């Protein structure tokens, strides 16, 4: 069964017809040629496919494309303004927070969304005070909040540093 949907991807409106079994990730990569989001496991276990869906980070392999009809999707490609990189992207380059680069777009989208969550006061499992108005993003908080994004090159120490530096310019 097929259905026509419209997505706003990295600021551009895209209309397409998809098999109702198609995931948002496959729609992006195979139908729209947006390969910034990566497929690592197709099971929501690795985070490589992380995009922002209406402002929140999601694993796009677990979202059916038809369920995203009308949604705003932001990938790591959309965070940069052409060659002008987002501050988190610049920080990842500066701190060598990746090696092979395959998990990196997902890490970066996740980091940008995570910083917003923290700003809004969302606690994590390592937060001492769940009701605190202000979240202090120390290394343990960043590591915990970034643990949905696996990196087999294991750049974790540099990833935490890259994000920490963005929070403390």
């Amino acid at each position: 069964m097929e259905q026509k949907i419209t997505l706003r991807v990295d600021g551009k409106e895209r209309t397409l017809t998809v098999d109702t079994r198609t995931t948002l990730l496959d729609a992006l990569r195979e139908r729209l040629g947006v390969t910034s989001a990566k497929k690592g496991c197709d099971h929501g276990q690795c985070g490589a496919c992380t995009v922002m869906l209406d402002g929140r980070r999601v694993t796009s392999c677990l979202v059916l494309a038809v369920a995203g009809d009308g949604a705003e999707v932001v990938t790591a490609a959309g965070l940069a303004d052409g060659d002008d990189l987002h501050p988190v992207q610049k920080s990842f380059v500066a701190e060598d927070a990746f090696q092979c680069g395959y998990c990196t777009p997902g890490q970066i989208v996740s980091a940008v969304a995570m910083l917003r969550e923290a700003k809004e006061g969302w606690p994590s499992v390592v937060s001492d005070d769940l009701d605190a108005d202000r979240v202090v993003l120390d290394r343990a908080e960043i590591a915990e909040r970034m643990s949905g994004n696996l990196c087999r090159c294991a750049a974790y120490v540099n990833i935490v540093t890259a994000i920490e530096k963005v929070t403390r310019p």
Partner: protein
Amino acid sequence: MTSPNETNEPSRRAVLKAGVAGLGATMVPFGAFEALGAEPAQAAGPVTAPPAAASRGGIGAALKRVEGPLKVRGAATYAFEWPVEKPAYLYPLLSTIASGRVTSVDTRAALAEPGVLGVLTHLNAPRLAWADEPEVALLQSDRVAYHGQIVGAVIADGIETARYAAGLVKLEYAAEPVDVDLRTDRDDLRKPQHAQGFGQLPGDLMNGAPADTSAGDFAAGLASAVHRVDATYTTPVQHHNPMEPHAAVATWTDDEITLYCGSQGVSTPQELLTRAFGLEAGRLRLISPYVGGAFGSKDFSALWGTLALMGARLVPGRPVKLSFTRQQMFTLVGHRPAAIQRVRLGADARGRLVAISHDAVQETAKAKQYAEQTVQASRSMYAAPNRRTSTRIALLDVPIPTIMRGPGEATGMFALESAMDELAEKMGLDPIELRLLNEPQTHPETGQPFSSRHLKQCFEEGARRFGWKNRARKPRTRRKDGWLIGTGVAAATYPSPRLPGSTAFARVDRDGRYTVRIAAADIGTGTWTTLAQIAAEALGVPQNRVTLQIGDSSYPRASSGGFSSGMNSWGTTVYEAARALHAAVDEHGGKVPPEGIEVTVGMPDDPRLRQYEFGSYGAQFAEVRVHEDTGEIRVPRLLGVFDVGRVINPVTARSQLLGGMTWGLSMTLHEETALDHRYGHFVNNDFGGYHIAANADVGSIEVHFLDVRDPHINPMGSKGAGEIGIIGTAAAIANGAYNATGVRVRDLPLTLDKFL
């Protein structure tokens, strides 16, 4: 634009902490983008021939990865992402028995499904012109040699249809008894043979080393010892799990056969596939500029290359895209074989070793013999007059094991370095002191000199930085908030081999732009940056005037990346090509003619390669916490000091070592693939069941280099950095866990149940 090397050549003797401090205010050079094949931003002046030393952005410069701006946007092109017109999708079918035959195939329902273009099985797959290599010879017979073997594939217009239709193919099997039990008391254990080069060359073990060695009289030596250790260590099956699944995109027309294929090297698989499909040399082009992690599992890319090419033959005119699923990767792209190792040590009253033995029993596949050099480190690590090593394998109905980061030593040094800790504990000696007492002057078996071996400095520097002297000598004496705290240490070593068969092309244009081409790979290791640095140094020009081209089989042949051989093999070749070009420019009186100057240079032979033992060294320190009530184990701090020769790029080298140490942490605490002994399948075959270290599993990790040039290994003076980071980490953590708890765990992984 400056780089730190312009005014400040890194000290060769001082310890360099490579990290933020080393980076200073360096900017990413814009040559970076040129190295990716874009147009040069601007022409440089006429070419003169400056001396080769200390050029800007040369060896030792802390340059950021040249492809970094692409990777952070997700714009680097991995295999599955190459745009092709109207692709078809291939979904593999895997066997559901571990041993036997396919007796019937029914593809009618699958073929009737709208959108299905074809079904491949052994009945209709192309017969290969050369089918001697088990990992290339897919679908050539009805035999099933392991659970999860490729027995067919569905090709369809869309991913969803291919996957759905795969479930409609009916295969029947005649199953035979399953044998997947690795035990040391099996009566059919055998000495491995012809495992070198994955069965391509003679030689007992994968690296060509003999299975067994001995010197002196081990039994008599052990009998004469005052202190003895006799312990057995086990390590489970582990899986590489690079983040990018193994993928290929194949286009096969009368005009071109192109394979985009995630691969640790492009030349070897191109040659294997050319032979298998009976093609003229050069007709097949294999392209792999960016690889989303490999760790050994993408060395044999001819496997998924074969399947994609077979698919493309089945649906003429359609490019075929194939990507294994995470679950399929567990049986198709190799694993680290399980091993059982017995280590016996005997020491005199002062702590000098008089006897060492290391006997390994490993699992391998009936489908293909793979045997790694698990005992190799015990041949070179410590002096002792009486010694022996042995390797035996059990041929089982399991998927084919392969090289995985630090193959051999990653598991072998867990055993040896745990045993050394046990001996030190028995004698009441400091474990560092015990190791330094037994430091050999020359290779203990061959008598050859080490080209450079600075293990002692690694320990001294590490001990100082880690605060080793503050440790509790007695186990189970430090606790805080319910956590028992301990510290452990271990040595690390890995050979730095040079693989044969690389050639490089170098060219200078009239406008002073240099191009260097070699079919090398960057699997995340930094090759895009470091080879350009080596070329820049050898040419005596700034790095941003060098355009590097790699990852394409149409470039001059290169060995595959693995065994920490990349820089030693490709780097040496690039260096020689650059020097030859430099000399050619000199012959032209320093002027470049309008047509430019080109050279193509093969890797030179060097008699010193046969006169010295080459290897990297390291000292690994760990702080370990084990919860007194739950047994939960955490590693808040790791510190490693490494002798990797001269550091080509402290940014990328540090990341490699950091990654290696984190791998060590992960293999110690988390990683274990469970094998079902009734059916012979891997049970926990995804990231839900097979845990690799996540961000919150990792605490502080410090990496330090001794930046000391090796005088003999290659023109750069650099040794291997890819494997050494994972070596010894497991022992350091297990030794730290013992120091914390008084419980000696000899079986990886160190899960909480083992401390209760």
